[in-house]
Every structure is written in structure tokens, then in C-alpha cells.
């Protein structure tokens, strides 16, 4: 490693290595591809958020007078499709996974750089199909595409959207493939499995799900399209087909997919919490293994989405039992993170605030998942706002919060600039307050019995809905702010230096922004992950030379 220059901009890095649109669109540098993903998914997040705000506005009044029923149905469908397939699934793995995995394992790039670029193009083509369906009249099946509504009764552009989801699926598969192979084959000398950052473990587990689960969604979508185009009858009761078979195949992917969304987020949390409490993550082995356990057990529980759908009572019980098991590794993680704080030396930079928010909100979201796992309760609350609240707590309170933590934590790494700490703290607070105000009332609504996907509702539910909409407005401001100040910081932000957090991890041992091939020389690892004791020790060890050492 070279010595640190304080004007990192002067150093050649992946950003200034080459100029012009072409140099970005044809890049095979995993970091640039990460940035391409970041830009794309941000656009889709704003779009999905726009749909969300229209949903919330519509639900301000019980009568359903802002938009037509059909329009409303398209709004929540497109909100769900865009948020899940175009934002949350790729959010952390494709942006931060792409950017960080090679650096964290000490490699020059992912194993298959061209495939990586292809993944982005595939993603954009798939997104193009989904956008085409949005523009040509929208999609109104719900993000779950349930048959026979989607195959026979919907008048919207199902085939284009389904094709879009099919195509983005391959982007996901290739990203997962690339990460698995990279972790196995491209690790720097000395970087044993038990020295890997937990971020890598989480991404590895995620990739396993991507590779094993996504193809099943793909073939299911092919069958839906065939059914819609040629009346194949496989899912159509009129021809003796079983609509529930679709649900089985869909959830075989889509339940594990929720772990595609949360596992990388958990990886982010492990990195941040270690850094800002200057400690090794408590129970490293257990946290690492719980990621794998979640990935494996996650494949055994899918029919908990179908308790009332007409499956057999016995199957419902089996799936309920298995679902309770999958909650345990998440509990292990939460407790280990909490224990990491014990006897730490804690500071409260913005990423850490998001970490605290994550743990609290994920705990609530996860525990309400346990409510849903209990068949006796789920019978009452399934397909109500209770479920909507549950999954926003884990997906927004969990993953989006972790995404923001990651964005702030690695922003200096990616851009060489610091974000403004005051603004970011204010926005973190807004997100936290706005989020809870938006989604907590929905638990109450759900238990009261307000069904989801309702364009109009009985008047007694109004007050809670108004609260929720009010919260969503605060939340929108909270999400808007980072977009503004982060963009601002690109020009006017303070220079970050190479390692503003004095963080452990190979990605911080190169300059910020990193050079094109990450490391001038392939590092040889001789230390454990999260060696904060060595970093913070006076004088620091040799491998850490050059990093300003605090205390």
C-alpha cells in the first residue's frame, strides 16, 4: 500500500481514470458499475416513492375520491413492483455488494467483470419492459401476480411487466453468481473464511438465495405468460389447473427473496456497528453462520403466505412450524449486535444512528413477522394492513435504513467527500419519526380488519389513515434530504481522506476513491476481521501504517 496523500483527488482513481459517457457505459470496473446501479435504483426509488405518496394521498379520505379504483390498483401494483424488483432487491447487493465485495476480499475486480456489466444492462432492459408496461396503461395485478386474475381477468399489460421481472431476475442471478465465485476464488492470500467481514458472509448467503431461488420465479413467469398468451390452463381452474400451484412456485422464490433484501442489510449493520463502537462484532461465528442459516431455512417456509389460500391444514401447520425456526437466526443477530455495544467506545455519526434505527425497527418488524407465522393469528390479519405494516417495518425500517447507513458510511470511500453531518443527522431523525408515524398506525388498522389493496374503506378507519399519510409526508422529506445534500457534497463536501472512520476492512486500506484496480499491490492479510484493538492501539501495527490513528 502506498502512503496516504491528503489530497486524494490528485491521485488517479476509478472516477477520474477515464472520462465521457462511453467510459461509464462500457466500463467493466465493478466500482463504476456499482455507481451505475446506484443512479438507476435511486431513480426507481423516487418513482416508487411517488406512487407511495399517491397511495397515501388517496387513503386520506375513506371515499376513495382522488383517483379511480383502477388507477389505485395500478398505483399499489407499480409501487410494489418498482420498489421490490427495481429498487430493494438490487439496492444493497448490486450497489454496495458490487462496489465493496472485491475490495473486501482484496481482489482487483469481481470474477466476471463483463458479466457484471451485462447484469446492469439486463437490469435496465428488464426495467425498460416494466416501465413500458407502466406507460402503456400500467399493471394492476398486485406485485404478487396471483392467478387467475393475472392470467385471465386483468386488462392491463401483464406480459410486458412479467417479462420485465423475468429479465431483471437474470440480472440478479448473474450478480449472485459473480459474488459467489469471487468469494470462493478471488480472496487475497491470508484472507481465510473466518477472517472475512460479516458483510461478505451476508452477501454470500444472499447470493446463494439469488442463484437457487430466482430461476424458479423465472420459470413460473414463463408459465404465466404462456397461460395468458395461449391459454395453457396450468393455473386456470376452468381447465382443471390449480391457481395455488402458482402461489407455491411464486413464494418459493419470493419468500427467500425477502432475505435477499434483509441479509445484505444485516451485513451493513455488522460493519457499521463494529466501526462506531470500535469493537469486534460479538460472536462473529454465530453472526456469520446465522446468515447461512437464514438462507437455508428461508427456503422451507414459503407457504406461510398461503395459510388461508386453500392449502391443506397439515401443510399450513408444517410451514408455520418451519417459519418459527427461521426467526431464530435473526434473533441471534439482533442480540449479538446489541452485545457488540457492550464496553465499546461508541460515537454517533449518522451511519450509527441508522444502525440504531435499524435494530429497533427490524426487531418490531421481525417480531410482527412472528405474529404472522402463528397461523391462528394470521388467519385474522393476513391480507390486512397488519401485513403491510410488517413488511414495511422490515423492508423500509430495515433494509432502506441499512441502505442509508451504508450510503453514509461508504460515501467517503466512493466519492472521497464527506457528507454534511448536521443535515444528515436531522434527516435520520425525520426518517425515524416519519417512518413510525406512517407505519405504526397500520398495525392497528390491520388488527381492526382493514384489508390491504383497498381503494376505499369504511369511515371508522380514517383517523389512523390520516396519521399514516401525515407520517409519509415527513418520511418523504427525510428521504429527499439525503438526495440533496449528498449531491451537494460531491461539489462542496469536505475532503474525506482515505479512511475518515479509521475503519477496519480491506476496502479502507486503499485510497478513497479507490484506484481502478483497487489495490496497487494485492494485500496479504495477517489479521482478523474488525481488528479495532490493533487499529486503535497507540502506534498501530505495520499493516495499518498510514492510517491516522486516533488516541
Amino acid at each position, binding site marked *: 500500500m502506498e502512503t496516504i496523500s491528503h489530497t486524494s483527488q490528485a491521485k488517479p482513481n476509478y472516477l477520474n481514470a477515464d472520462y465521457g459517457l462511453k467510459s461509464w457505459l462500457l466500463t467493466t470496473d465493478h466500482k463504476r458499475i456499482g455507481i451505475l446501479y446506484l443512479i438507476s435504483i435511486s431513480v426507481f426509488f423516487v418513482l416508487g416513492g411517488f406512487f407511495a405518496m399517491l397511495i397515501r394521498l388517496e387513503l386520506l379520505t375513506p371515499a376513495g375520491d382522488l383517483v379511480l379504483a383502477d388507477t389505485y390498483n395500478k398505483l399499489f401494483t407499480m409501487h410494489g413492483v418498482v420498489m421490490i424488483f427495481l429498487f430493494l432487491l438490487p439496492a444493497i447487493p448490486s450497489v454496495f455488494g458490487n462496489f465493496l465485495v472485491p475490495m473486501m476480499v482484496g*481482489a*482487483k*475486480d469481481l*470474477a*466476471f*467483470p463483463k*458479466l457484471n456489466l451485462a447484469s446492469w444492462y439486463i437490469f435496465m432492459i428488464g426495467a425498460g419492459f416494466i416501465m413500458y408496461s407502466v406507460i402503456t396503461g400500467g399493471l394492476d395485478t398486485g406485485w404478487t401476480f396471483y392467478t387467475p386474475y393475472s392470467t385471465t381477468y386483468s386488462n392491463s399489460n401483464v406480459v410486458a411487466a412479467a417479462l420485465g421481472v423475468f429479465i431483471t431476475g437474470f440480472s440478479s*442471478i448473474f450478480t449472485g*453468481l*459473480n459474488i*459467489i*465465485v469471487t468469494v*470462493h*476464488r*478471488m480472496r487475497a*492470500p491470508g484472507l481465510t473464511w473466518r477472517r472475512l467481514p460479516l458483510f461478505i458472509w451476508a452477501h454470500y448467503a444472499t447470493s446463494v438465495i439469488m*442463484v*437457487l*431461488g*430466482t*430461476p*424458479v420465479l*423465472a*420459470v*413460473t413467469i*414463463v*408459465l404465466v405468460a*404462456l*397461460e395468458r398468451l*395461449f*391459454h*395453457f*390452463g*396450468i393455473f386456470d381452474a*376452468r*381447465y*382443471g*389447473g*390449480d391457481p395455488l*400451484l402458482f402461489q*407455491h*412456485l411464486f413464494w*418459493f422464490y419470493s419468500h427467500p427473496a425477502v432475505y435477499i433484501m434483509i441479509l445484505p442489510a444485516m451485513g451493513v449493520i455488522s460493519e457499521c456497528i463494529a466501526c462506531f463502537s470500535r469493537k469486534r462484532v460479538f460472536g462473529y461465528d454465530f453472526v456469520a453462520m446465522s446468515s447461512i442459516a437464514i438462507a437455508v431455512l428461508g427456503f422451507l417456509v414459503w407457504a406461510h403466505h398461503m395459510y388461508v389460500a386453500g392449502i391443506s391444514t397439515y401443510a399450513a401447520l408444517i410451514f408455520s412450524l418451519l417459519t418459527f425456526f427461521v426467526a431464530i437466526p435473526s434473533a441471534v443477530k439482533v442480540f449479538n449486535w446489541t452485545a457488540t455495544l457492550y464496553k465499546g467506545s461508541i460515537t454517533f455519526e449518522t451511519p450509527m444512528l441508522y444502525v440504531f434505527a435499524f435494530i429497533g425497527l427490524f426487531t418490531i418488524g421481525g417480531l410482527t413477522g412472528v405474529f404472522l407465522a402463528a397461523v391462528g393469528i394470521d388467519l385474522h390479519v393476513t391480507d390486512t394492513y397488519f401485513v403491510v405494516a410488517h413488511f414495511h417495518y422490515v423492508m423500509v425500517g430495515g433494509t432502506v435504513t441499512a441502505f442509508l447507513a451504508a450510503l453514509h458510511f461508504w460515501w467517503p470511500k466512493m466519492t472521497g467527500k464527506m457528507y454534511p453531518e448536521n443535515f444528515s443527522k436531522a434527516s435520520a431523525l425525520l426518517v425515524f419519526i416519519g417512518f413510525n408515524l406512517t407505519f405504526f398506525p397500520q398495525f392497528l388498522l390491520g388488527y381492526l380488519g382493514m384489508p390491504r389493496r383497498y381503494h376505499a374503506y369504511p369511515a371508522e378507519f380514517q383517523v389512523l389513515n390520516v396519521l399514516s399519510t401525515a407520517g409519509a409526508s415527513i418520511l418523504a422529506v427525510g428521504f429527499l434530504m439525503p438526495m440533496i445534500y449528498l449531491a451537494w457534497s460531491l461539489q462542496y463536501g469536505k475532503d474525506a481522506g482515505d479512511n475518515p472512520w479509521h475503519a477496519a476492512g480491506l476496502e479502507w486500506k486503499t485510497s478513497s476513491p479507490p484506484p481502478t*484496480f483497487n489495490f496497487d499491490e494485492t494485500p496479504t492479510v495477517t489479521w482478523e476481521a474488525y481488528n479495532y484493538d490493533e487499529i486503535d492501539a497507540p502506534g498501530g501495527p505495520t499493516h495499518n501504517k498510514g492510517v491516522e490513528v486516533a488516541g
Partner: protein
Amino acid sequence: MPDNQVATQDLKHHFADLEHQKATSTFGMWIFLITEIMFFGGAFAAYLVYRLYYFNAWVAGSQTMEIKLGAINTVVLICSSLTMVLSVHFAKLGKRKLTAICLLLTLLLGCTFLGVKAVEYHGHWMHHEVPGPNFHFEHEGNYDPHQVMIFFSLYFAMTGLHALHMIIGAGLLIWLLIFNARGRFTPEYNTPVEMVGLYWHFVDLVWIYLFPLLYLISHSHNG
């Protein structure tokens, strides 16, 4: 590891040496094949569910399959697997001409398979056995024609996806032939041939299951 290998145009910058690169590619290809297993697996699961539920219809549908054509195609595919594995073998030995011949044979056998499949499809078409509003099925047996249509739906979906894989495979073979003609493969660098080989064998493997499931296992039942 210091880079003591002669760097060739084939070595990508982020690998230590050619061996590392090849091992990585092979592993990547296997992961891809794993996704393929799950892809066809979804359709197999659907097949299994309905076979258990609609056994009579499955027997009826399956008995209209031309076992002879199916068997011919199985043999064709097995032969193509042999020629494929030989082309990999010769590519590794650097025997360009033999590689080319074997690749060409594989391609021809692949096309034969698709041709036979087309004949079968045509037959089903003529007999109104293609799912959809024009589906019509009348044979001996206690079955529900709707359910026979589901059999045919799965038949077409599964063999169709398989044929699609064959077409892609044929494209890859042509690409290999061109590269081989340009002399791009050497005893040191022949990864693409090997990768396409893996893919081709996998497609063969799918057929090894499709053939008994669709043509054979219900054949002798006269419910």
C-alpha cells in the same frame, strides 16, 4: 503468488494465472448450471403435482407420444454428447481439425434433434393437441380432456424450453467453430470449448429426464 506465467492475451488482468482463470470460469459455469437445475426444476414440480392428481389424463396424453421419435431423439442427443466431449478432448490436445469435426458433428446432431422435435410438434398441431381454444382430444380411456390439455401444456412448456436451450447451444457451437477456425484455442487456453461442453451436456441431462417422464412412464397403463 507472483505472476510467473507468461501473460497471454487470454489472461484477464484480475487473475493470477491461466489456471486460476480457468478454475474460476469452470466454477462460474457450474453455478450457472445450478440455476438451470432450479429453472427446469420448477416445471418438473408442476409436472409431478399434476401427474399425481390427474393420473388418467397423464396416461391418455402420454400414450399419444411417439415413443419411436422420442427414442431416436434420445439417441441423437447421446451421440451429440459424445461428439461434444470429444471436441473438448481434442481442443485440450490442440488438435484443431478434429475439434472442428467434432463440433460440426455436434451441431448437426443438435439440428437433427430440433428437426425431429419439429416433426413431433407438427403432428401434435395436426391432431389439435396444442393447448388453447382449439385443443381437442379424443381417445380411449377414463379421463377429463381438460386435464389432458394440462399435460400438453406442460409438455410444450418443458420441451419448448429445452428446445430453446438447444437453439442457444447451437448458436454457441457456431461461435466456437468460428473461433476454432481462427485458431484461438490452444492446449493452454480452451476454456470456452469446455464451458459450452458443460452447457451442452446439461441440456442433454434435462432430456434424459424429459424422455421417460413424458413418453415412457405412463405408456403401458391401460387405465
